[in-house]
């Protein structure tokens, strides 16, 4: 049940999984929302490390670029714009907490036992090779071209939709306070235009 081979790969796997698990636990248990986002960014980075271990470099660095970079910054932006007062810790019933702990431990034991006793069939030797990025590109533009294009259209629609929703509010304000001034002269148009470009991001 505990036949583990201790080599570099196992050490790296252990470190990355520690990062992921710690990040996930902290994400739930921390009090401030910004701290939660940072621990989630830690989880994303750990996942990227896992992808590198699996020889999927392209997916790994796209993970860093999109999730650890863009998504985390977007969430922090959103959180900073909102009011972040600490909500006082909720009262927890000791009985409830104890039962939850027992349940979680039992689930862990069950999963651990099931995974360690299962005989996995020996997988075929992995043919990742040197140029797996090139292979992903070729597959995307041959076999998977239709889903790829559909996804692009979906993202474009979402993008345009979010711009449309973000733009509606300032126009209403302008309309209410005499729409003639809007857009004429540097003074009144300046801040509105800025707001619009910022929201358009």
């Amino acid at each position, binding site marked *: 049940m505990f036949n583990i081979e201790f080599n570099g790969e196992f050490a790296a796997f252990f470190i990355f999984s520690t990062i992921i698990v710690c990040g996930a636990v902290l994400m739930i248990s921390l009090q401030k929302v*910004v701290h939660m986002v*940072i621990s989630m960014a830690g989880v994303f980075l750990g996942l990227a490390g896992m992808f590198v271990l699996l020889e999927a470099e392209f997916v790994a660095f796209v993970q*860093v670029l999109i999730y650890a970079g863009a998504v985390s*910054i977007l969430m922090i932006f959103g959180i*900073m714009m909102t009011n972040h007062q600490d909500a006082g810790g909720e009262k927890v019933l000791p009985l409830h907490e104890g039962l939850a702990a027992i349940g979680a431990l039992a689930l862990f034991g069950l999963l651990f036992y099931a995974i360690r006793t299962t005989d996995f069939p020996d997988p075929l030797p992995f043919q990742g090779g*040197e140029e797996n990025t090139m292979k992903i590109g070729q597959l995307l533009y041959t076999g998977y071209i239709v889903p790829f294009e559909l996804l692009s259209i979906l993202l474009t629609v979402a993008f345009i939709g979010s711009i449309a929703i973000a733009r509606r509010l300032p126009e209403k304000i302008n309309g209410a306070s005499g729409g003639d001034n809007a857009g004429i002269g540097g003074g009144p148009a300046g801040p509105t235009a800025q707001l619009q470009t910022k929201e358009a991001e």
Partner: protein
Amino acid sequence: MGAWLNGPMTWGNAVVIFLWGAVFLMIVLGFVTYAIYFERKVIGWMQFRQGPNRVGPLGLLQTVADIFKLLIKEDTIPRKADRLLFMLAPVLAYVPAFSVLAVIPYTQKLYFADLNVGLLYYVALSGISTLAIVLGGWASNNKYALLGGMRSAAQMISYEVPLVISVVGVILLSGSLNLRDIVEAQSGGWFWNWNFLPQIIGFAVFIIAAVSELNRTPFDLPEAESELVAGYHVEYSGFRFAFFMLTEYVYVYAIAALTTVLFLGGWQAPAPFLEFVPGILWFLLKFVFVVFFLFWIRATFPRIRVDQLMGLGWKVLLPVSLLNVFLTAVYIELFIKG
């Protein structure tokens, strides 16, 4: 380096790799020290001033003295700041800045990591520094710092998009994300084989977006002294402030090296009869030229307004870089494949 990285991981190899990393860190710190000196001198001469000339011969020790001053200053943390994030932010800014340098190839034999997605690695890690800047601004609990952090994030995200799209043309031409293969694809003897002429639109977009990513004039809005007190690092002092400054100059190194590799042919000589000069010298010459160019821009341009900045990024650079991708694809389809 490749032999060590691909060899089996023994303790001996680990020590060798670690020592190389330490040596490289020293080289980068030396570069940053003298890049600051060089910048102040060049800007001084352009403005009919002397620049630093008191500490040491020709003022050569001026930056060393400045760094020493920063290191012995009191390390202050505002009482109402978020302590943990305040301390984490400079680290989180510097680590990616140094890590991206791992994939830069200097000559055919002198490189650190030969990564098959080198360019993507660079772009992905440099995004994390933005996160650190926003966090530093937020954790300071100061409205000027927050404003600077927000401006910085808005600017860096807006300009990262055209920056990434502008290099797609280079990737199309060389058919690889590996920086060494990209340099190899620019061989051919003459300087017009380098990517900056076939990819002239991409090159222009890349340079503008890169200056903006570096937060340097004319795009230095995140730390516009006259508008924002200092920007996201108002509350930082001593060595934590030094780390933010270090990050910026390490990114100058990284962007200059990346421009050399992607558009200026890396270690390739500009003409066949000049190939007897070792490649590292050509790399250094181009690299120093790009660094000088960045300082030159800083000395001569005024700062642009924040709405002009966003307008330029989204309404000009993004469409132009997309057009560049389209034109490159059409060119390859018509003239190279057909």
